[in-house]
């Protein structure tokens, strides 16, 4: 990471349950509030981490009690950095259908990965596709 110093860093290995995922997300959201994040920026981070967490737990680890998700969150002066690594087989995020296409528009799934991309400043997946790294730079007008 190029950013020299973070104000808040959380690293945690959590079981593959939505409850555990949401407890960890709440730690991030509390810290963001502490560090003055609110409004749209806060919402965007909340949305991206919710989607990424649910994907890691459900699609990645398939809620297996034998698997865990490695969580790494960092809050800096004007940005937040988030990384989730699951123990699943991964996927190819570039091969997903576009949920905004007319033919997919009324499908009851397939919007999470796209929302993460739209709401974050940068998003990267590792080669295998079991690790997502998200970075959000705070907007100046918020």
């Amino acid at each position: 990471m190029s950013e020299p110093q973070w104000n808040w860093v959380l690293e945690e290995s959590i079981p593959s349950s939505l409850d555990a995922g949401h407890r960890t997300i709440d730690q991030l959201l509390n810290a963001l509030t502490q560090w003055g994040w609110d409004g749209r920026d806060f919402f965007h981070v909340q949305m991206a981490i919710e989607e990424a967490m649910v994907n890691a737990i459900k699609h990645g680890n398939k809620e297996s009690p034998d698997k865990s998700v490695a969580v790494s969150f960092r809050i800096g002066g004007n940005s937040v950095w988030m990384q989730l690594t699951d123990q699943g087989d991964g996927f190819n995020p570039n091969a997903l259908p576009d949920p905004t296409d007319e033919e997919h528009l009324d499908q009851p799934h397939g919007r999470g990965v796209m929302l993460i991309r739209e709401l974050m400043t940068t998003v990267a997946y590792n080669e295998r596709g079991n690790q997502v790294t998200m970075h959000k730079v705070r907007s100046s007008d918020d």
Partner: protein
Amino acid sequence: MAGKRRIVVSDIGEVSVVRFIDRKIVDSANIEEMGEELFSVVEKDKRRFVLLNFDGVEFLSSAALNKLILLDRKAKAAGGKLKLCGLRPEIMEVFTITRLDRVFQIKKTEADGIEAFGL
């Protein structure tokens, strides 16, 4: 239905206005309950005109959007109509990004929403 209620339904004329108990609608056991309760409004109670009022809802994830799409299908299958209102700007943005603002009819206020049924 067992457990806590996730929605509250009140009839205003022929329109059933649905409000949400949770301020955050995320993927969890609660969202399944919420889905079942919403579906029963159109399937069991056979309400034809349903207006979802999101006043007080601060966050909803794509899992919630998925439930709304299924609800819309069920409403249409039952010959009914579904509309949305009271979305805060951040949530409205999610509908715009996903283009779901073209799937759902979204009104600003509850009054606008009720009127839009043209009853």
